[in-house]
């Protein structure tokens, strides 16, 4: 848990949802955004397109476009305003 950027304060009474993150299974909770799901396990969402630094989202209201990740069909979604769904495949590594 200490590996995450966020940690959960309360988890009671929410169903677990399993999705895949870069091919690995990831357990989130119903009602989580993709961002919460990822950042409770990792420090960041993805790397800068033009540098080595990491990005972890900033505005959390769908405006700054800092938090986009990809779904398995190649679509870009904003992690902060997309809710997790069971069986969702998320990719954070760029194809170059």
């Amino acid at each position, binding site marked *: 848990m200490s590996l995450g950027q966020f940690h959960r*304060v309360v988890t009671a009474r929410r169903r677990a949802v399993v999705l895949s993150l870069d091919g690995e299974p990831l357990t989130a909770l119903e009602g989580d955004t993709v961002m919460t799901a990822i950042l409770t396990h990792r420090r960041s969402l993805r790397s800068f397109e*033009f540098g080595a*630094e990491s990005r972890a989202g*900033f*505005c959390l209201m769908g405006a*700054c*476009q*800092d938090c986009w990740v990809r779904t398995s069909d190649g679509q870009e979604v904003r992690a902060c305003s997309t809710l997790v769904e069971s069986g969702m495949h998320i990719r954070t590594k760029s194809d170059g």
Partner: protein
Amino acid sequence: MSEHDIVIVGAGPAGMRAAMTLADAGLRSSVIDEAPRSGGQIYRRPPPPLEREPKRLYGFEAHRAVSLHAGFDAIHDRTDYYPETLVWSIEPGRLRVVRRGRPMSIPWRCLILCPGAMDRVIPFPGWTLPGVTSAETIWALVETRTLPPGQRVLVAGTGPLLPVVASRLVRAGAEVVAALDAVSSPRVRRALPPPWGQWALAGDATVDWRTLRAARVALVGSRTVARIVGDEAVREAVTVALDDAWRPLRGSEESIEVGAVCLVWGSVPSIHLTQLCGAEHRYAAERGGWVPAVSAEMETTVPGVFSVGDGAGIGGAAAAVLEGRVAGLAAAARLGALSPGVARSQLRPHQAALGRLRKSQEMLGRLTAARVGLAELITPDTVICPCETITGAQIDQAVDEGAGDLGQVKRMTRAGMGQCQGRMCSPGLATMLAQRRGIPLEAIAPPSIRPPVTPIPVHVLATLPDE
């Protein structure tokens, strides 16, 4: 679709209230909103699994949030509500939107724009590190019931939200190391109008201060964060004293070990949509920066286009609700659903209340408005535009080569050309330009805007219906 083609963009307090006012006058409107549920940012409604009692979600604002939600829900059969719908272009008589991935065109004759605001970013070394967030993040964290990992959080910025954010973090269980206010704090406290609650978001400021005192959180005035050190996480923050122009005072640096930093530099009105309509804008530092010029009825310089809520100038939810009512009544009168006499008498008390509210807000707004001295913190490798990763050195070079406004800087460096279209970096970039060139902030025009104003899939453009 409404027979009068009245379209409201944004379902926050202003938009919800405008739709309710129109429905009361017997007019059907279309309400377009990005979020899956109404409420806007301040009264956002979490997804069902995260629902809790309103007091826990909205604090001292709970009564207003509850009555707005109930009122908006009650008009669902008299309103066309489009959640999860993004406006990407406004043309005369027609809005272009994307709804759940599908393109749509919505006709309009009367437009009430309620796009809200964004947190202001003023760049400094380390602000893009994971673990550095803005005020808005705190509401999201409260909603999702997560926190920066159980360690120490530094809160820095200014304005009425600063103690609110710090105390909400404390109540959520975080250890807040200090709350740094760029303005000397006793001055802010003196400027706060009685009753405290008038500044919508400030809620009950006395309770926030009591929470901070009980948790022994130091509220330090005339100081801010100058630099953040870390890699995949925040490790350390260097703080610095500021003079009255917010210039950092060399030699006053102190470093503290922290795990997260929350920046609270106030909000910037979202003016992309009023810009797209071709409305005139003016600079109002006390209301957050560039705002559309509006009449006493909240109508912009473009006939039939109204602007209300934080997008018309930062005023918080209480002002947004009053403005929503005013625009709703004015639009209803315009469309003949209310006689001019009735509309005038109904408008008067709301306009008077709004006048009183603005007077006290603007006093505080002037005191806490962004001052350009802060841009002295920017170093050559400070990221200014995160989308394109443009640094301070690149901006300085462009300024040396004669770039004088945001448009020239953008064309020379790509700053503001990325995915967010300058939403994040423009206010900070304007602050930097003003400081480097020694000119006032109001001398720097907002960046010009063109559709699409939000990223849309290319297939939306490719499949536009023939017209």
